[in-house]
């Protein structure tokens, strides 16, 4: 079966010469939920932007359900790859929630009843239907993050990429978002350094450090490997027992 996302030997340097990725390779199968773990500056966001062609690799290639990421089919790539950015204020820019959710599918050419159905379904998936007519800046932070997820879901992506989905959320919003994410039937790549959240949501994890993948395996096993975590500047929160993880 074609993987939902395949990254092969991707290397990338920014125009200022800073090399951010050194030959990254991995594949994510359809329906998988994978966490991408790594400290700040590991190249996680750079890698994410390779996946929808905002940045194009200097070497190597990225394919999304068989379609290579290249300038000639960026539109289709951006439909297939939905990125939820870290700050919902960056993502939500239309006057109302419904219009914002409609922005993506409308760019794909959807109009009228079809567009409306998409918007409704996406808002329903994140439990925000009753806020459709409100301006985004009148919502709480947790609600805005959920709407940000809906804006991408409305494009019916093949793979959903969440960039630090738990950042700045209070515990209740964090749990609500986790419930939404586990309820979605879509391939997910979750970029985070919130290790318990990765464990809760993603059976598999990739560890990234200094622009390369340093580990790939079941999340519980990786998080129980104290040496691996230390070598990659990752740390479990205080009181979190790695031995208990193995038992899971």
């Amino acid at each position, binding site marked *: 079966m074609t993987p939902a996302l395949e990254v092969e030997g991707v290397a990338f340097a920014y125009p200022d010469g800073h090399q951010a990725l050194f030959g990254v390779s991995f594949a994510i199968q359809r329906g998988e939920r994978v966490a991408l773990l790594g400290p700040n500056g590991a190249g996680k966001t750079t890698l994410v932007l390779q996946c929808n062609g905002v940045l194009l690799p200097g070497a190597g290639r990225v394919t999304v359900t068989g379609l290579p990421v290249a300038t000639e089919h960026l*539109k289709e790539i951006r*439909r297939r790859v939905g990125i939820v*950015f870290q*700050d919902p204020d*960056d993502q939500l*820019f*239309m*006057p109302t929630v419904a219009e914002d959710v409609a*922005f993506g599918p409308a760019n794909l050419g959807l109009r009228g009843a079809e567009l409306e159905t998409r918007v409704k379904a996406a808002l329903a998936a994140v439990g925000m239907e009753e806020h459709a007519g409100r*301006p985004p800046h009148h919502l709480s932070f947790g609600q805005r993050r959920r709407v940000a997820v809906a804006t991408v879901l409305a494009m019916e992506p093949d793979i959903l990429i969440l960039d630090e989905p738990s950042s700045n959320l209070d515990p209740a919003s964090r749990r609500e978002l986790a419930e939404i994410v586990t309820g979605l039937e879509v391939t997910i790549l979750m970029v985070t350094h919130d290790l318990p959240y990765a464990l809760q949501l993603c059976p598999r994890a990739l560890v990234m450090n200094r622009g390369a993948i340093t580990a790939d395996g079941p999340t519980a096993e990786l998080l129980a490997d104290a040496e691996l975590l230390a070598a990659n500047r990752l740390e479990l929160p205080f009181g979190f027992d790695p031995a208990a993880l193995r038992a899971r």
Partner: protein
Amino acid sequence: MGAGHAHPLYLPGTSPLHRARPQCKIAASLLFVLAVVATPREAFWAFGLYAVALAGVATVGRVPLTLLARRLVIELPFLLFAVFLPFVGQGERVEVLGVPMAVGGLWGAWNIVAKGTLGVAASAIVAATTPVAELLRGLERLRLPKLLVTIAGFMVRYADVIADEVRRMRIARISRGHDPRWIWQARAVAASAGTLFIRSYERGERVYLAMVSRGYAGAMPVLEDLGATRAQWLAALCLPAMAALVAATAWGVRP
């Protein structure tokens, strides 16, 4: 942060005025203002009629007249300018309560006060009965260049975000003992403004990135057709038509 408050000028409601198409309301108020401005300043009765008509429209829109009066405060700085005219004006003078004033200046001041107040009142009624998002769509329907409407939309959307940022920066400054009282202490404020500019610029880039990631290719999609029917236009144009008639009559009966 950010939750709760509605747009400050909008009064939620379901009156006929609230339900009217935004483009009709904008066009009607603009034409009304044009008719008011074109009215000769000597025709006091005409301005009285305009005021009564506006009060009627406000009642239809369930906008309390006291609220409307409070919102007129925004024109005070302009009125201040008008107040000077009778004192600095040249030419024939009359004594008002023992103070000599220029006749031309008095007429000029009256002209500004009357027409300005009517104009501000008309826009205040539109603003009180139309959410900002609809105003933007109305402007788009009136063929205002899309780019301008888009920019205005972003400005409205991000004004709160940036104001929040300003507030946080100010609190962070005063929390470190900054207590600006004199102009030479303005350096920190100026530096904050610079930082704010850079941050907003970077946010602009991130917003663009998020737009591109959702398939943006240079044009905002038109989501729904908010066309107005002929009946809606006719209803909306009643007020400016009446105003035009009054203005024409005022010119006709002018001595």
